[in-house]
């Protein structure tokens, strides 16, 4: 079986909504270059609805695919609906991600929330900070997936030269 599903490869090779919105109403950036991934989401919001969304991503195939899918999932939705979009929804829409790539979907969720928070802050809209805390990849992930991720990590650590054979 290939590492990635056809959906992931499609969104990686033909990413939707790539780019910048110069007069964005909210911008969110998460990740850092040392870890090897950064996602930036630009939102245009009108009447409480995502009128337009663009992304820029520095990262691996699943990071780019997760960003692309996440933008598709939130486009045209109301803010309340967007708040319901979790990393799980991104993973499901991509027909799954390998266990050690789940953090890419978490980054996508966090980037969207960071952009919304930016919009709220700029417009003085009150919100519950609890909704915007950063969380790690292990939350919201079913235990069996976590277990698989741990096993994969252990296998990666145990086999010599997983980077270069």
């Amino acid at each position, binding site marked *: 079986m290939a590492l990635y599903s056809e959906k992931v490869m499609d969104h990686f090779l033909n990413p939707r909504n790539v780019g910048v919105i110069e007069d964005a109403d909210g911008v969110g950036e998460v990740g850092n270059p040392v870890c090897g991934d950064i996602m930036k989401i630009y939102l245009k919001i009108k009447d409480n609805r995502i009128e337009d969304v663009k992304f820029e991503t*520095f990262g691996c195939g699943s990071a780019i695919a997760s960003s692309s899918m996440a933008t598709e999932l939130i486009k045209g939705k109301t803010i309340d609906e967007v708040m319901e979009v979790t990393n799980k929804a991104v993973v499901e829409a991509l027909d799954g991600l390998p266990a050690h790539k789940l953090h890419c979907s978490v980054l996508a969720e966090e980037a969207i929330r960071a952009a919304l928070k930016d919009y709220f802050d700029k417009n003085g809209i009150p919100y519950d900070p609890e909704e915007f805390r950063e969380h790690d990849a292990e939350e919201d992930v079913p235990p069996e997936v976590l277990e698989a991720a741990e096993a994969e990590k252990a296998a990666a650590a145990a086999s010599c030269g997983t*980077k270069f054979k």
Partner: protein
Amino acid sequence: MKIIYADNAATTKMSRVAIDAMLPYMEEYYGNPSSLYSVGQKAKEALEQARADVAACFNAEAREIYFTGCGTEADNQAIISAARLGERKGKKHIISTAFEHHAVLHTLDKLKKEGFDITLLDVHSNGIVTAEEVAAAIRPDTCLVTVMYANNEIGTIQPIKEIGAVCKEKGVLFHTDAVQAAGHLHIDVKDQNIDMLSISAHKFYGPKGVGALYARKGIILTNVIEGGAQERGKRGGTENVAEIVSMAAALKDACAHIDEYAEKETKLRDRLIAGLDKIPYGELNGDRVHRVPNNANFCFEGIEGESMLLMLDDKGIMCSSGSACTSGSLDPSHVLLAIGRPHEVAHGSLRLSINEQFTEEDIDYIIASVTEVVQYLRDMSPFWRDLVNGKRPHVFSE
């Protein structure tokens, strides 16, 4: 779509010579070399001829060659053996380098837990350690120096003969992991003062699952695999005759063509390096001259390696990266970190390893594709945008 396999440092396609050599030992002479009847003895003869052939490629003697299941096993056995010999004399210090293959590094980790003291020498930014640095690290209790012949990621060739001379002078065993060098570079264990050397067949157009350890006569090996009396009692398990014969044929063939292939590959490699050098804010990893003829390894700022690999695969080009995302760990390549590349740059690495069958057109196609992919990924990278806008500092110059 044309397929360009540019990952020959990972593994190679078997040569016709190697495939033809192994078939008779699967179809006809399938006997166990330890059996006394003819079909077994035929296999035994082939096994011993293979040993002599492998030995001849390194100016060694047949009885100094031990067949193993892979290069990793050979590395394990060489290091464990030297450690056991050393600790009997109270010598429990081993010197190696920070950018060895994990076959060496993880074996050293194991010995460290047993109480050995391990010195990992820093590697210069050009990917080379010097004999002087090895000499300076040797102590009265040093039992082994193990330094790879050529690095598997960046292809840099170490001054093996000089390091060997230093070890010989100080009476310390010297092992080299020659997995990336065997069949590609001239190796002479006597001239280069090598006590132990590891090779792996699938890196020189032979089969996977077979390797060899050269150990100078007089060095008593410790078993990694216990069992029967095979390999003079030093490696249990019925010999993998077909693959051993195939490895010997592949090595003989590769060694007969070293100069011819190296000349062709070096020309193509330098064309590739010159083409990729034109991409702004990218840099070659490892020394330009002292590197295996088939390796080019670059870091490009602002992008991540796995996405480069996948996009190149979509264009029919297969290659490797040292990014964390291709390794299943959180850190990028320890080799790139060892030569001083910062994490954010090491994530954007690309290794291309060619062979002598490449054409100039192949090389030009790779250059054009990599240039296009780097630009495409940079155009969607917020990290690249920050570099361009001066929000983050560049590591490389334009």
